[in-house]
């Protein structure tokens, strides 16, 4: 393991300069009397001004590792380590009371979701002041001055105004920055950030990352937990790659990203979609068997003209037009509130239009009443971001798929055969038929959702953030599956996403939306190489640059 040279000896003593030393950290939980190990042997050192990143997918043990470093693993956890030294104190024997004094003062903890981590009834000011008050910092006036100072430091404009507001009055980015301000209120020299930008729009993510970078420059040590390699590449000096509780690979950022040794690291790096990956497979495994005949479709399959949708006076969608050809993919990209999901619902005929028309397969669609639309419904289907909520919780996979086939007049045998065929198409084993979606993994659930969307043999599938909630290697598999299905069946996709990388990987044409309006439209090359509109330029500048080649020395 390579570690940066100690910057300075503390008081001339022969102590290592590491602020945090972890050796062979193990965490286990006891569930129903059985012991389950979730972290098996994590070791690293954290020196001043350094960022250690722990990368992994869900269930890798990365968040548990982070939590065990601040004593937040919960009561039924067993935390063991050969060495766990925080500021040269043995943290293994810390009592809950000792951990409380450590948290905030020595270690700041930034959680993923600012909306649930902040008290909705308290103004931001009270939230940040509490951290100071609990550690008996200053008097009232001094604490208020400190709050304003902190908010200014994390780049919150008009801090005096914002300090008086409650979390629901702030945007996602401001909330996340308020949370960071409360985590660093007491100037902890170690900051642990658990997926700090995961729920954020890309422009906001760029702001939060630059704030973390500034903290690093000021000498703070950062432990960054993330599933997103492009975020990690921005900040990390050292990287630990975790899977199933074990560290698979560990080294400097240049080593791990530039010349990865473990197969899994390579898969992770290959799985990041971008415009450079167009036309190539993202996952390293073989693609599933496809048995589908291309439906005959000539001309546009979906045509939207000047779509308008108003919600209580606000134009959520304002004059959106597009024409989707057979076998084509249109990507709609935009940040939260841009109207992209509403556009998807309008195309699906699940929301009534306030203006404009949608035509499906060259037939009237949006002007029809729902009763007459039903006949055409099999031609257009949908996959949502959260497949779980789109399945009836009482139904198992078999029933979900059989239900999707109701519209077709099939015999029972033919229907059962078709269900198995669908499973093969999306690469799922027959065993999942009897399982309930809740017991499936995120990737399996999304495959079931895709199988359901394929069931009526549609001409168009609307994919609304369909891969956004998935781990990056799973996302890669699903994207590959979608590409393979399109090649085999000639189905068209209307692909909605906030993720420019995913959009550019998949789309033939891209629409950039902002505040309900399409600000720019073109091929991925046009959009990414020669963006015209200032917003598109800002959006593209905000994408964290992830180019593994740049790490190869």
């Amino acid at each position, binding site marked *: 393991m390579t570690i940066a040279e100690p910057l300075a000896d503390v008081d001339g003593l022969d102590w290592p300069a590491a602020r945090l030393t972890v050796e062979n950290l193990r965490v286990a939980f006891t569930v129903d*009397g059985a012991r389950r190990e979730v972290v098996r042997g994590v070791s690293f050192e954290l020196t001043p001004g350094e960022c250690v990143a722990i990368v992994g997918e869900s269930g890798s043990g990365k968040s548990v590792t982070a939590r065990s470093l601040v004593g937040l693993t919960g009561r039924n956890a067993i935390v063991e380590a050969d060495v766990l030294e925080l500021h040269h104190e043995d943290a293994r024997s810390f009592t809950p009371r000792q951990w409380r004094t450590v948290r905030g003062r020595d270690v700041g903890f930034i959680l993923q979701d600012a909306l649930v981590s902040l008290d909705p009834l308290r103004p931001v000011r009270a939230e940040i002041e509490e951290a100071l008050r609990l550690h008996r910092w200053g008097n009232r006036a001094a604490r208020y001055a400190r709050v304003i100072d902190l908010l200014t430091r994390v780049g919150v404009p008009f801090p005096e105004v914002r300090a008086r507001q409650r979390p629901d009055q702030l945007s996602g980015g401001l909330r996340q920055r308020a949370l960071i301000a409360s985590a660093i209120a007491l100037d902890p020299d170690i900051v642990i950030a658990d997926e700090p930008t995961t729920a954020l729009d890309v422009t906001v993510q760029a702001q939060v990352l630059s704030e973390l970078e500034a903290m690093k420059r000021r000498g703070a040590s950062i432990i960054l937990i993330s599933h997103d390699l492009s975020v990690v590449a921005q900040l990390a000096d050292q990287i630990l790659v975790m899977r199933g509780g074990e560290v698979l690979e560990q080294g400097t950022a240049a080593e791990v990203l530039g010349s990865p040794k473990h197969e899994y690291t390579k898969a992770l790096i290959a799985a990041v979609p971008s415009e450079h990956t167009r036309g190539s497979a993202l996952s390293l495994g073989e693609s599933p068997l496809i048995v589908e005949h291309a439906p005959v479709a000539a001309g546009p399959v979906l045509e939207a003209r000047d779509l308008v949708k108003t919600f209580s006076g606000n134009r959520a969608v304002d004059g959106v037009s597009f024409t989707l050809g057979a076998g084509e993919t249109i990507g709609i990209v935009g940040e939260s509130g841009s109207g992209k999901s509403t556009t998807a619902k309008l195309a*699906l005929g*699940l929301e009534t239009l306030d203006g404009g028309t949608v035509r499906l397969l060259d037939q009237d669609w949006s002007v029809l009443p*729902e009763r007459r*639309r*039903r*006949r*055409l*419904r*099999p031609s*257009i*289907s*949908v996959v*949502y971001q*959260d497949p779980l*909520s*789109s*399945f*009836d*919780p*009482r139904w198992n996979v078999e029933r979900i798929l059989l*239900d*999707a086939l*109701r*519209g077709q007049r099939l015999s029972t045998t033919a229907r059962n055969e078709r269900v198995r065929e669908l499973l093969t198409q999306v690469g799922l084993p027959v065993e999942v038929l009897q399982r*309930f979606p*809740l017991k499936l993994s995120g990737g399996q659930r999304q495959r079931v959702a895709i199988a*359901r969307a394929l069931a*009526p043999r549609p001409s168009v599938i609307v994919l609304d953030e369909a891969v956004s909630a998935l781990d990056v290697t799973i996302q890669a598999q699903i994207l590959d599956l979608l590409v393979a299905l399109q090649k085999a069946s000639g189905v068209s996709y209307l692909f909605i996403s906030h993720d420019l990388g995913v959009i550019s990987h998949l789309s033939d044409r891209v629409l950039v939306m902002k505040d309900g309006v399409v600000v720019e439209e073109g091929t991925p090359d046009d959009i990414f190489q020669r963006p015209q509109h200032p917003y598109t330029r800002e959006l593209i500048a905000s994408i964290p640059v992830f180019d593994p080649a740049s790490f190869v020395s």
Partner: protein
Amino acid sequence: MTTLTALPPRTARILRLPLGLYLALAFVLLLVIAVLAPQLLATHDPFALAYAEALQPPSWAHVFGTDESGRDLYSRVIFGARDSLTIGLGAASVSLSLAVVFGALAGLAPKPIAVVVDRFIEVLFAFPSLLIALLLVAILGPSALTAVFAVGLGTAPGYARMVRGQVLAARNSGYVEAATALGHSRWRIIGAHILPNALRPLVAIFALSVGQSIVWASSLSFLGFGVAPPASEWGALLDAGRAYITQAGWLIVIPGLVIVAVALAATTIGRHLQNTLEKGEK
């Protein structure tokens, strides 16, 4: 717990159930016997007058004591179970049936109808349940059957609001939108998704509602609008004991405790049902 882990999983799971649940189930079993064959449990004739033994405190001869006419209170409580539980089960059924119909209408009917039904439910909900029940008794005259409908109607608005909330939640759920996108008809969606999901919590609510209805029915009887004497419905027992509250407190305390015990047992079982149903989803 270590002894339990050695047992087969199914047995271990049954043994691990809380003691309270066993007590509740045992109590319900006693109630069932009292309803079907009260003579098996009763020690005396519940209607046999014996003025010489009037107002005796609990003793070995009369475990719950005797009332002002010397009738054995324990036997009267046992014989009263049939009326009380009929009212409890009946009222809970009436109440939840009304709640399902009105709640579903408020949640699913076309807008003008839904708004009217919703307002109607809210106006009824604003009245105290007992007031609605009393109104009905005033119209129909006191009897066990009236009590069933009175209590059922009185408690329905609260449950109707709950059903409406459940229906709305299911109606706006992702799976209903997904079913719409698949082209299923409105009735198919209501029958296959909305109603089953919205009504599932009612299984547990029903058990809770039985206990509550008995308490409400007792209130009616206590006010003299329930089952007429000499029937020994528990609320009527309370009402009769009221006159002797200073001399013979047990006449009120013991039937009162029995009512509490029934409500407690029903609640315990209802809770457990609810937990088991929810666990099945996880």
